[in-house]
């Protein structure tokens, strides 16, 4: 089964699911705004948007909508990898996936592709209008750059997410572990609070996460701070390739464990 065949099947699955559950589509559009409002009003608890502008020379809404878009995009693309084995298990489709001859790594790499198209849509409905409002035409170009960077950020996360999924699903009630791993990854990536402001130990551990470098590029661009963009991109993509064998091993080991225990329907 070629990679294109797998892609075609996954696109069909994802789009059928999304268009037949309009609430999912709606949430994709609304969530970046929801999280922006949420964090903005928490900001009111401690201070005011005026202070933010004074400190960083940037409207907090621009910063927060970008952070929310990063959060939603990365979650959307890694969730499909983290939750899929569980989803298949619940549905009773896992037995058919495991007994199929499809190349596992190809299969899991193909999984998030439909989500990339959705996050482009999400970018067009979240950061694009906000950037246009604040920056005019320059905002359009800036938002296109951000969407490209975030898409790259999602792509480089794939092997890392596969690796984590394979490790987590080896334990019972893995979904509880994943629910802890997800926020830790987001905090260490510096989605809302830039990682270049957190203590060194956090920065070092966060550097194990491929897309943290791309998030850093985005934040430094917005805050008009100096950054070695090409170096950070190179590190991100190097990590992508370094995680590939680990991800292949992880999925294989998880599957072997499942087959040994007997594949059940949850």
């Amino acid at each position, binding site marked *: 089964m070629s990679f294109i065949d797998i892609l075609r099947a996954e696109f069909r699955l994802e789009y059928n699911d999304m268009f037949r559950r309009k609430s999912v589509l709606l949430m994709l559009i609304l969530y970046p705004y929801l999280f922006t409002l949420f964090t903005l009003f*928490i900001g009111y*608890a*401690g201070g005011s948007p005026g202070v933010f502008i004074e400190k960083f020379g940037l409207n907090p809404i621009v910063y*927060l909508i970008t952070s929310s878009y990063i959060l939603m995009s990365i979650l959307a693309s890694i969730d499909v990898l983290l939750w899929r084995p569980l989803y298949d298990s*619940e549905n009773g489709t896992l037995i058919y996936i495991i007994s199929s001859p499809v190349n596992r790594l190809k299969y899991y790499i193909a999984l998030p592709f439909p989500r990339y198209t959705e996050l482009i849509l999400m970018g067009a409905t979240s950061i694009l209008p906000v950037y246009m409002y604040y920056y005019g035409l320059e905002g359009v170009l800036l938002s296109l750059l951000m969407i490209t960077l975030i898409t790259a950020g999602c792509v480089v996360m794939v092997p890392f997410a596969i690796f984590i999924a394979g490790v987590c699903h080896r334990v019972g*009630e893995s979904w509880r572990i994943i629910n*802890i791993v997800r926020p830790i990854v987001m905090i260490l990536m510096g989605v809302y609070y830039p990682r270049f402001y957190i203590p060194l130990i956090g920065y070092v551990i966060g550097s194990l996460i491929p897309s943290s470098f791309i998030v850093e590029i985005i934040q430094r661009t917005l805050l008009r701070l100096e950054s070695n963009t090409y170096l950070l991109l190179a590190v991100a993509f190097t990590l992508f390739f370094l995680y590939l064998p680990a991800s292949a091993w992880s999925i294989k080991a998880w599957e072997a464990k499942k087959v040994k225990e007997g594949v059940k329907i949850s």
Partner: protein
Amino acid sequence: MLRFLRRSYAVFKAYFISDFIRSHGFIYGLISMGLWIIMFTIPVTLFTPGGVSRDEVASRIYVGIMLFYYFSAASWDWAAELRWMIMNGRLEYYITSGAGFAPHYFGILPFTLMWLCIALVFNYALLSIVWAPPAITIVNSYAFAVGFILYTVSLIGYALLLGSSMLSTGSTGYFVEFLSFILPVATGGLFPLKQSPEILKTIALLTPFSYPAELLRYSLLGIEPVVSIEKTILIGGVYGALFLILGVIVFRIQLRKALRNGFPTVSLW
């Protein structure tokens, strides 16, 4: 009355053993939620001017977290439990038991309060590590008690409204998550209304939650509500009671609708 208490106790016991003792969902959920809250709340420091005490900022965040947690419990424990009951095939047996839904809510409430206490201790520790120890004292115990009771009453009403939509449509998890984020924001749960923009003040005062939330903030932080305390108690009390009655009425209507059309199938998310 004895029967009602026995039934409520049975619900509490089943929930406690199942979710706390045997599945550790309690602990994992606590850790997960604590981490998400930290991710969303730490950026407040980007809005804080220099010279403001860290303790004070931490206190305000902490009270916001407390109100948010209680709100989330009403969404995810009280209302969303009905989704779990549908998914696990227990709802139909619950209905045919003739127990009614009051024992269900009454039985889950103590578990929620227990969870809330432990979650607040956990978040106190987390906030202390990440930012600063919140300086919390009960400035006015009467306002605290009244605020807590009124908040509980409003949240039960809200849980009944949300639960009724679960029964009749099997609302998706996305919808519930959306509500559980937007409503605390819109109802002034996260920050003092005195400091918020006019439009938000107006919206918040239209909901029953903001009155008890203001009372609780006053009792713990000493921040005066936008409306006088006496008025806050009066309006909050009347509004909360009406909201609860509305919740009961809508729940009964939706239950009847579900009995007419059949209960929905729900998915995991």
